């Protein structure tokens, strides 16, 4: 059975590269590919994938599957070549497809590892899509990254704590985690921070084509659903609040950032101490004195007088 799934899933993994390969003419093919997961995954029952990451699987029914179809429709709409057929550049559509694949992975993952992977890759894919379609305002990108990276680390801590609390040796399952989350305040804190960091992505929503829909889907649809998967209704609500807080924090930060960045970049590299080895030894005055002592040692007077001293020393040594 696992070989069959490998055959089915392998193309899915490579789909994001499709736009790069087929170039602009067959632009209409991309939205169709975006719709593919809806047809593939809806009826599917739970599936174990022991060889992915550290042994994960795909949950069949439940809320995740429903949201998957919504996400696929939104991404297909974003990728469709509206208007005069200009459509998105291959690189942007590739990133968007990657984001969509990651979101779906997060939504249907049975183990926390795959969920975390999807959650992180989706955000970076969206960021890459936005950057490749046009530069951001100065100071905005560092602000986003400054919030995104700690958010990922928070998600990393979240998963670690789940593993310890749910004492499943290596990979905590989502179901197990859901049972534990409400109780542990520390974990809830990390979850909130992770969700908030996704709020930063809202800053990407600009008039650029194909940005509004995917970002909104990720931040406003997928993140709450993950919150729901981990902590039911309370989880979903706190996720939305965290996202809003995150967006506000990033907006404030992007104002403060330019002057801060200017001071940070002049870090110079300290000149490390020169190693006094033979370069130093050779050139300095010190070797001159040593060589002088050696010449003095070489004179007959010193050498043969030294012989006498040696004989006396040996004599004395024999008395004890």
């Amino acid at each position, binding site marked *: 059975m696992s070989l069959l799934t490998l055959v089915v899933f392998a193309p899915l993994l490579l789909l994001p590269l499709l736009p790069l390969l087929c170039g602009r003419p067959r632009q209409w093919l991309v939205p169709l590919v975006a719709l593919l997961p809806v047809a593939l995954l809806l009826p599917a029952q739970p599936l174990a994938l022991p060889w992915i990451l550290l042994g994960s699987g795909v949950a069949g029914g439940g809320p995740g599957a429903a949201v998957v179809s919504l996400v696929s429709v939104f991404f297909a709409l974003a990728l469709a070549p509206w208007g005069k057929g200009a459509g998105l550049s291959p690189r942007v559509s590739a990133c968007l497809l990657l984001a969509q694949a990651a979101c779906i992975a997060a939504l249907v993952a049975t183990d926390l590892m795959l969920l975390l992977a999807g959650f992180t890759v989706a955000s970076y894919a969206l960021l890459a899509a936005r950057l490749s379609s046009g530069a951001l305002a100065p100071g905005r990108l560092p602000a986003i990254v400054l919030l995104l990276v700690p958010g990922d680390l928070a998600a990393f801590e979240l998963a670690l704590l789940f593993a310890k609390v749910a004492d499943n040796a290596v990979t905590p399952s989502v179901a197990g985690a859901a049972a534990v989350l409400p109780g542990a305040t520390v974990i809830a804190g990390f979850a909130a921070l992770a969700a908030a960091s996704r709020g930063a992505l809202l800053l990407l929503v600009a008039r650029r084509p194909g940005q509004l829909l995917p970002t909104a889907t990720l931040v406003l649809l997928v993140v709450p659903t993950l919150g729901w998967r981990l902590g039911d209704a309370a989880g979903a609500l706190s996720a939305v609040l965290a996202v809003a807080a995150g967006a506000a924090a990033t907006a404030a930060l992007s104002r403060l950032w330019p002057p801060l960045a200017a001071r940070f970049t002049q870090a110079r590299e300290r000149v490390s101490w020169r190693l006094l080895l033979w370069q130093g030894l050779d050139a300095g005055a010190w070797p001159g004195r040593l060589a002088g002592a050696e*010449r003095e040692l*070489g*004179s*007959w*007077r010193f050498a*043969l*007088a030294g012989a*006498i001293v040696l004989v006396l020393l040996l004599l004395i040594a024999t008395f004890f």
Partner: protein
Amino acid sequence: MTGQACYAVLGALLFCLSFHALIIAVHPLRRLLAVNVMGSSVFLVFIAGAGPRDPLPQALVITGIVVAVAATALGLNLLLRLAGPAEDDRPSAGQDGS
């Protein structure tokens, strides 16, 4: 002090004297002479130590003398080669003692 003992002491004294000369002398020829004197002083100590009818020290001393002669010959040859044909061939003053 039996005769033999005083010869031995004389030999030891001669050894120290020639050793001192070897240190003080600057010209290599004087050094070579000092070494010769040192050799004979050692042979004197050897002979002084022998019993009345003991042939061994005599044999050893003769061998010693032969070796000393060979060494002196080699030293003199080196000296001549060093004094050598051209005056400028002498080593620079810095080379102490040779």
